[in-house]
């Protein structure tokens, strides 16, 4: 999984033998290398881990229930008792943001993972098999990419209805098809390598070649694709929730906290407009920075691309 593989095609043969001993030593130290070479990226990674932790243990960490109404404490500004203040029903915004982290973490991680798997399947088959199959596949992806993600999401949600599982399914499908391009181009660059031809000539099946020879060698772009997907999914989910098409209330989501009934009270309690947006921005920012740092470490050829 974490093998930082050096592509033979990129390295002159004479250098290969000296490099060959390296991967194991380097790969075991990805975290150390990250801290040493990319301190900002490591910090961003820490923020990301913290976010997942908050999401996992929201019910332990939250001082109040996410739907605990307390009319006397309505619209209180941030204080020691209510870190982020309270909303129009006296619900603690800090607790609600923590539970919002849970939704973002669940949807972000699972939809990004599914999307990456979909990208891998489409990208590997179109990229490796090539020919007419690839051509038809690419025209399909072309057509797909002409539709803005958000517009597809809105149209599909309008058909299947809102809800956590629908959102995860739709997001992973939409982002998965889009991301298949990146995997495809990685496969195309690996496909003509000597070891693939060698495997073909000893009669290895397509499945075996894809699984044992192609997949391990396109791991760096896959990891990078996954990390950038997490941020994209979190943003897309919050956008849908903001439009009232995401996970339905009373479940608090970061996008949902910025919309709906709370909006009219933001003029009396501007902190209502701040906390959820800040949480979102910080988490997505951290995920993107972390993803960039990982990309620079794992796949220097992709530097500067997005």
């Amino acid at each position, binding site marked *: 999984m974490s093998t930082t593989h050096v592509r033979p095609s990129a390295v002159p043969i004479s250098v290969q033998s000296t490099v060959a001993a390296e991967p194991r030593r380097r790969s075991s130290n990805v975290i150390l290398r990250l801290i040493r070479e990319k301190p900002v990226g490591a910090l961003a990674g820490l923020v990301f881990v913290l976010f997942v932790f908050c999401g996992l243990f929201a019910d332990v960490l939250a001082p109040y229930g996410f739907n605990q109404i307390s009319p006397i404490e309505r619209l209180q500004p941030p204080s020691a008792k209510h870190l982020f203040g309270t909303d129009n029903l006296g619900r603690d915004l800090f607790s609600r943001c923590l539970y919002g982290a849970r939704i973002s973490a669940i949807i972000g991680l699972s939809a990004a993972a599914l999307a990456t798997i979909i990208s891998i399947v489409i990208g590997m088959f179109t990229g490796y098999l090539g020919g007419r199959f690839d051509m038809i596949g690419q025209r399909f992806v072309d*057509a797909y990419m*002409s*539709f*803005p993600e958000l517009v597809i999401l809105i149209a599909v949600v309008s058909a299947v209805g809102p809800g956590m599982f629908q959102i995860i399914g739709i997001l992973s499908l939409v982002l998965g098809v889009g991301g298949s391009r990146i995997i495809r181009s990685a496969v195309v660059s690996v496909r003509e390598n000597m070891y693939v031809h060698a495997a073909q000539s000893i009669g290895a099946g397509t499945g075996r070649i894809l699984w044992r020879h192609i997949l391990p060698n396109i791991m760096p772009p896959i990891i990078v694709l996954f990390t950038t997907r997490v941020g994209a999914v979190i943003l897309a989910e919050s956008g849908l929730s903001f439009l009232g098409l995401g996970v339905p209330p009373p479940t608090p989501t970061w996008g949902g906290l*910025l919309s709906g009934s709370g909006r009219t009270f933001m*003029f009396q309690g501007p902190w209502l407009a701040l906390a959820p947006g800040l949480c979102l921005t910080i988490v997505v920012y951290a995920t993107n920075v972390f993803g960039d740092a990982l990309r620079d470490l794992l796949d220097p050829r992709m530097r500067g691309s997005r």
Partner: protein
Amino acid sequence: MSAYLVRRLLALIPTLFFASMIVFVTVRLIPGDVIDMMLSQNDIGADKLSRDQLLAALGLDKPMPEQYVRWVWALLHGDFGKSLWQSTPVLEQLLQRLPVTFELGMLAMLVGLAIALPIGVYSAIRQDTAGDVAARSLSILLLAVPSFWMGTMVMVFPSIWWGWSPEVNYVKFGDDPLQNLKQMMVPAIVLGMALSAVTMRMTRTMMLEVLRQDYIRTAWAKGLTERLVVRRHALRNALIPVVTLIGLQAPLLIGGAVIIEQIFVIPGMGLMLLEAVNQRDYPVITGVFLVVGLSVMLINLLVDLSYGLLDPRVRHR
């Protein structure tokens, strides 16, 4: 050039076919009970006749391939169907809304370029300085700030601090161009900031690449000023690939417009889509979906063609 145009247009056919399939299949996902819901909302009563009528109105009573062919045939004749609630042709509504979103998109694009180009160029000619690092951080930050949050803050804070809030009663450009522009400026800035992030990165990357070319070294060797080298020699060449970004960003722009139009109550395609989704007005959803896809394809086609005009090195045979 004309041969290239023909080839490019031919390549568009399969893409159009798949796009129409995507729209068709998505709308066909409507489960049966939604039709019942529409019936109950419509107060027609759920008797057999009206159910059949509704199925017929949606064209759902025919076999799938026939439905598809009929639908495409109608589209080719400019028939996008009728709205279920307003009983006006969808095409008529679309033609009213499209220019509004188009204007918002153009303004946002201009704002995005106005932010991205100077910062991107600066960041490239001062590579690895503190300014460059700050500019790069800014572009990653802009990617992370959701436009609906920025829009919300623009609505809330100026109103609290200065009692100013963006105008939400939309004025048509034709009626009062100045008032319209004043109104569109704030949403366009919010949308443009989100767009500028990617353009900024791209400008920086392309500038860095161009600055390493031989003709730049020659320009320096001639003793030209930095201003001349950057503006006349480097920027002009670096900007060509940035133009392609306009095509790549078109989906992002239209997707962003949906949210921005909702926040600032601008009656464009995005608001039309959201209204249609809330009313489950499927012919309208289909129409918007399709027109959005077609617009993106058209923009990409134009960008591809303009590429040859902008860059004499890439003349198409």
